[in-house]
């Protein structure tokens, strides 16, 4: 393995409680009248991108917003159900900024940067204020004040929610703030445009190249800084809970231009999703984790049992979580519940027509609490399940199975959220920063909005201020022409293969390789298998892909082909990272590294670092840059849920 220079996160000095406020005082500022002299490009209109673009527009910067959606409001943040954490301590249960910080570092299995996490906890309270003022209709108590839920991994109630549609309401809030800025002219919106290249000039990020999804025209955009808020890469697995269009192309393009990609092997599997029903399944649907509060998980004791659930007598059922984890039972953390389900299915205990799930049974709760109570608590989820499977969960147990739904890895950024390429900022799920190796529930929305509303608007002036008086690099500059040409060439190449297989076929095959070998449980052997199979599939992709239509029209197969082409390269790095990390931590479970109880066993002596990978060519060995992680406040311990 090639080892490069050490990475410096540029964390400010001082006590952890004062770092952020001191840093805000220390950064260079751009005076209000000068802000309009700077143009910032924001790619992605989810929580992080929309909140950043709106906030920068309010400050007076000129913002260009690029999204592949028809409307910014459709970004995948909209699908988040559960809630958003904030250390408000409205419930007088002992919550504090420090406790949220502590829970997040520990929940992340000690693989996040302490200073970033503390800042996240600090601004969490401002996010709730901001959202309420915008009109986000959070759940309330009868007195008119805000209600909270509790969520996995925390012993306090700190989760704010808007029914089961919290992500939707938060995104609409950010979108409306963005819409106002579009109306005022500070933000220029370019919808249905796909970013296909990052442009750098003398080592700095100066622009992006996009392709109009409607006309196929190639556009150059130039700015003083580029902000990527383009989400995660769960769809490398083909089947995930992400939206169909969610993709890694923007971060992968930036990576190929020199940005380091950190910890790509940290992927999170959600235990309660609806299992695939047939080979045509296009995506998986997540069911809120709260179901595990009242549902009991079981399989038949007999492998290969073909009887329907109702005909399996009580003493022939194995409530395996209750058996193996008596203290936490059905409420063990996500990663543990997921691996346990995989083990049952792998050993032949799977249920349903494809034997690819486990039961989540509400019969006992319905008997104890009555159908009405269960309906009140989970009515909308039961309805959603019934719609998708055609089975009534009040009568038959639900079938569930784990699925990929969030990725903690992403582009490496420093404390200011700037990547190693000056002028390139990365926000939200697209960066690697705050969740370590495992994200706690209700923390993704918090991080996206923290980055967009509060962190970037405060840090970006540090980079922009010294550039006062300079113009963005002209789009007539050869760097733009070259980048445009490379986009055109790649598009032509995809259209010109004229093979026999569809892009979805290749995507499914790639998904199978990474899911089987780099999914919930990974071994050196499985990862080596993936490292052999991915390049072979990639070669086949470039020989046998078939994309019809032309480049100068709305061509959805061509869009997907470009994204899958990037996944073919990205997947290899993800597996490579998993292979190099000889420990288990959070969502990265290496079978060789487990405790006697079968839990993740970290190796803090050798792996307490963030792994930033530098691109050295497709199929070439990447260079590893380590950022050592220091834990001065939260002491390293082993998680246990027995």
């Amino acid at each position, binding site marked *: 393995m090639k080892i490069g220079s050490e990475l410096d996160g540029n964390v400010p000095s001082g006590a952890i409680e004062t770092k952020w406020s001191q840093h805000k005082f220390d950064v260079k500022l751009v005076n209000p009248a000068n802000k309009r002299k700077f143009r910032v490009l924001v790619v992605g209109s989810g929580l992080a991108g929309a909140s950043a673009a709106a906030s920068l527009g309010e400050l007076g910067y000129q913002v260009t917003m690029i999204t592949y959606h028809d409307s910014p409001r459709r970004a995948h943040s909209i699908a988040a159900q559960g809630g958003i954490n904030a250390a408000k301590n409205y419930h007088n249960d002992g919550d504090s900024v420090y406790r949220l910080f502590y829970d997040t570092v520990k929940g992340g299995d000690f693989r996040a940067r302490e200073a970033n996490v503390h800042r996240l906890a600090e601004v969490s309270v401002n996010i709730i204020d901001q959202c309420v*003022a915008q009109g986000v209709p959070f759940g309330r108590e009868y007195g008119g004040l805000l209600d909270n839920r509790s969520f996995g991994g925390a012993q306090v109630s700190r989760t704010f929610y808007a029914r089961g549609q919290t992500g939707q309401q938060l995104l609409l809030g950010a979108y409306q703030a963005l819409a106002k800025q579009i109306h005022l002219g500070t933000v220029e919106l370019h*919808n249905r445009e796909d970013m296909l290249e990052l442009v750098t000039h003398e080592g700095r990020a100066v622009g992006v190249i996009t392709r109009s999804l409607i006309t196929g025209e190639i556009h150059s955009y130039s700015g003083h800084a580029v902000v990527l808020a383009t989400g995660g890469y769960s769809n490398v697995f083909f089947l995930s809970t992400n939206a169909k269009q969610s993709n890694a192309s923007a971060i992968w393009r930036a990576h190929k231009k020199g940005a380091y990609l950190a910890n790509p092997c940290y992927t999170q599997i959600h235990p309660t999703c609806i299992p695939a029903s047939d080979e045509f399944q296009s995506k998986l*649907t997540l069911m809120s984790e709260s179901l595990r509060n009242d549902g009991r998980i079981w399989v038949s004791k007999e492998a290969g049992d073909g009887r329907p659930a109702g005909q399996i007598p009580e003493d022939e059922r194995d409530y395996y979580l209750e058996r193996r984890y008596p203290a936490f039972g059905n409420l063990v953390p996500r990663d543990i519940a997921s691996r346990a389900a995989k083990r049952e299915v792998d050993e032949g205990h799977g249920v349903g027509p494809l034997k690819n799930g486990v039961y989540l049974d509400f019969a006992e709760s319905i008997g104890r609490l009555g159908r009405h109570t269960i309906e009140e608590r989970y009515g909308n989820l039961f309805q959603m399940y019934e*719609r998708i499977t055609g089975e009534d969960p009040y009568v038959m147990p639900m079938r569930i199975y784990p699925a990929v739904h969030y990725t903690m890895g992403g582009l490496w950024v420093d404390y200011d959220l700037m990547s190693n390429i000056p002028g390139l900022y990365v926000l939200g799920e697209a960066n690697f920063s705050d969740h370590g190796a495992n994200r706690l529930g209700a923390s993704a929305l918090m991080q996206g909005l923290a980055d967009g509303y509060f962190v970037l608007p405060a840090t970006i002036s540090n980079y922009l201020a010294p550039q006062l008086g300079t113009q963005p690099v002209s789009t007539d500059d050869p760097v733009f022409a070259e980048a445009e040409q490379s986009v055109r060439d790649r598009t032509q190449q995809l259209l010109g293969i004229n093979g026999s297989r569809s892009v979805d076929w290749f995507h499914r095959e790639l998904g199978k390789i990474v899911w089987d070998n780099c999914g919930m449980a990974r071994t050196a052997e499985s990862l080596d298998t993936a490292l052999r199979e991915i390049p072979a599939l990639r070669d086949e992709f470039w020989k046998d892909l078939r994309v019809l239509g032309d480049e100068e029209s709305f061509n959805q197969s061509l869009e997907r082909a470009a994204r899958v082409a990037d996944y073919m390269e990205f997947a290899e790095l993800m597996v490579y990272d998993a292979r190099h990390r000889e420990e288990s931590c959070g969502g990265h479970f290496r079978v060789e590294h487990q405790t006697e109880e079968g839990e993740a066993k970290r190796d803090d002596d050798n792996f307490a670092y963030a792994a930033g990978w530098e691109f050295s060519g497709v199929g070439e060995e990447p260079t590893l840059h380590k950022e050592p992680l220091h834990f001065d406040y939260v002491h390293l311990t082993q998680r246990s849920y027995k």
Partner: protein
Amino acid sequence: MHLKLQIWRQAGPTAPGAFEHYDMANVSPDMSFLEMIDVLNEQLLADGKEPIAFDHDCREGICGSCSMMINGRAHGPERGTATCQLHMRKFSDGDSIVVEPWRAAAFPIVKDLAVDRSAFDRIIEAGGYISVSTGSAPDANLIPVPKEVSETAMDAAQCIGCAACVAACPNGAAQLFTAAKMSHLNLLPQGQPERYERAVAMVEEMEKHFGSCTNHGECEAACPKEISIDFIAMMNRDYVKAQLKNRRLLGQTS
């Protein structure tokens, strides 16, 4: 299942369009409607024909991208359900299914079943927000909101912006969308300072793009979130009041 499909194909906004007929065999009842189209697209590709273009993304009924007229009904036969959540078990073996894009003058066709709904964005940009710059908000619990108010605002706010309401309306009117977006904000205490300006700005922008409401109620029946047309009454009331309201006295509570 075996199905006979008639699907609208149109190469671009100004190109002539026509129905194409497709026979589909071996459709599984567990497929979603969009997965059925995915499979059809794979077949078309194998036959060297261009796949059918359609908008879709989350496939969980929340992003509002999917937009198909199925047998003349926006999002198809199942009440309160977006196209992506409609499953083939709702159809029978041998059925003929007609699939069209949203039909409304305000939504030009992009290609096949995909349309351009940016007119909705223009309505929000005109006034569908509460002006609060980042960082200027007071503590969240300084603004108590009665639970019933918050719940009603949420009933309106859950609109997914799919535009089924416009597609279902014989007049191509956008009253249900505009009313849902406006009522969400106008009901809340935070929305009061801009309430009447918002009503005027959103309604007037809406009227630049869409037809007029004549109370058919088709919108409510088509809405995948089952948003009530009561919100249209609220919008109309606020719009009328906005013409007469002395805004210098808005600080008075009675």
